[in-house]
């Protein structure tokens, strides 16, 4: 297994944290190798924000994502910009209400932001997406991701985020 993943959205959506959660789940609790890189500098400022993950069952040499096998898009800009960089057959996960996919594209959609608003906390849309990702891709155990949430967030925030994770994971 050698999987390249790109998570993208706009600044403030917590894209980096989503990457960290998945990376930690894989590397610390999932028995996989994981490398995450992010764009720095001018590119990282302003609108678009992205996190890039390589997950593999062997040591990862080249750390960068070149042609994602999985694209998670949480904004139209991110989708439009990054969809062409991903494999044509890539698994594409989008936030239904923020992204209108290209006509021919096959995507898996979840209204992550609306569901988060439903919880009263728009900010956890990223973790809802992480839950959805976990279920859709199937290569990380739900428990591993839960553990990553527990280890990565301040204790006060853990229950809320575990709930968000569950909502995303159980979304039909």
């Amino acid at each position, binding site marked *: 297994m050698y999987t390249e993943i790109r998570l993208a959205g706009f600044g403030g959506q917590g894209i980096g944290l989503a990457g960290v959660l998945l*990376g930690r789940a894989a590397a610390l609790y999932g028995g996989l190798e994981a490398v*995450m890189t992010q764009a720095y500098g001018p590119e990282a400022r302003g609108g678009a924000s992205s996190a890039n993950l390589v997950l593999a069952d062997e040591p990862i040499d080249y750390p960068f994502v070149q042609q994602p096998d999985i694209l998670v898009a949480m904004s139209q800009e991110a989708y439009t910009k990054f969809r062409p960089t991903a494999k044509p057959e890539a698994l594409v996960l989008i936030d239904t209400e923020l992204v209108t996919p290209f006509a021919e594209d096959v995507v898996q959609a979840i209204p992550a932001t609306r569901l988060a608003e439903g919880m009263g906390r728009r900010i956890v849309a990223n973790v809802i997406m992480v839950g959805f990702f976990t279920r859709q891709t199937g290569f990380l155990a739900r428990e591993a991701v839960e553990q990553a949430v527990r280890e990565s967030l301040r204790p006060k925030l853990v229950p809320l985020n575990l709930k968000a994770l569950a909502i995303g994971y159980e979304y039909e």
Partner: protein
Amino acid sequence: MHGDEACAEGAIAAGCRFFAGYPITPSTEIAERFAQRMPELGGVFIQMEDELASIAAVLGASAAGARAMTATSGPGLSLMLENLGLGVMLELPCVIVDIQRGAPSTGLPTMVGQADVMQARWGSHGNYSIIAYAPWSPQEAFDLTVLCFNMADRFRTPVVLLGDEVIGHMMERVVIPPAEQLPRWERKRPTTPPPTAGPYRAFEPDPDDLVPPLPHAGEGYRVHFTGLTHDERGYPDMSGEAHHVLVTRLNEKIDRHVEEITRLEDYGLEDARIVVVSFGCTARSARRAVREARARGIPVGLLRLVSLWPFPEAVLRELAQRVDTFIVAEMNLGQVRLEVERCSGRPAVGVHHAGGEMIHPEQILQAILRSAGR
């Protein structure tokens, strides 16, 4: 954990309790981590007015007995070179981290480079030897920082960690061993009390390894340290003879211990006819390329320079006896290639890029295929 964070944590695990620095991308996260952590541990974090001051403060702290370090990138290293030389001359252990970015000058602040290799070696004026390590993963940013402190204390000298932006900013699993499992080599310290008459000889070399024991400020040894050429008492001695003796010893205390200092990693060297030499983040691409080439039956191996300085001349000479071709992959225009050519006595194939983006495994693979006549 990011490579930068891992580096800071490695320093802390090694007992570093003094950090002085000046923010610069892509090393700033190291300073930020220290700013967080030092107050919890009773250590000192201070943001100085520039890099000239940062390294001066680090040397002062070292003289007072602390394990101390600073972190910067190329433009800051340029300023630190002045007192890197002072550290060499006063024989004050410390660690200088350079997270390399695109250079010269302000270059590419947020993007990777590996072009400070020769600056780290020869940057300060005069003849001196330096110890430098180049991590290729966040894990090694941790491990090698620990090693840097140990080497600095072992040889009473500044040590450079030559990281790069890719390693500094990438996130990967880092295993932090329990403190008691980390190796710790202590500074050699005076074994006799301060003399009642006459000065203590703070620069009298131990005949075994040429490293003099180091008294700290406040211990009553009334030492004198000067950047001027000095005798074994530390007193200025403006003679060519004293200068030759001192400078030769400063070089030899490191050069004599090349084997002890050197860290290399090889992959598939046993049967190799072609050897790829690389270091830091570029070595990751090199390993991928070597794996792919070996899968195609090409007898190629990777020699990864975990330590860059002192250069492992003997190893390369020995390899040159049984290898047809050296390929050097590095994100500069040939700094390590020149060293490889010098040691192997023949031209090497260079896979170079001036910096800004990592060399792709495919570029190295192509060079291997060409060298193998495919």
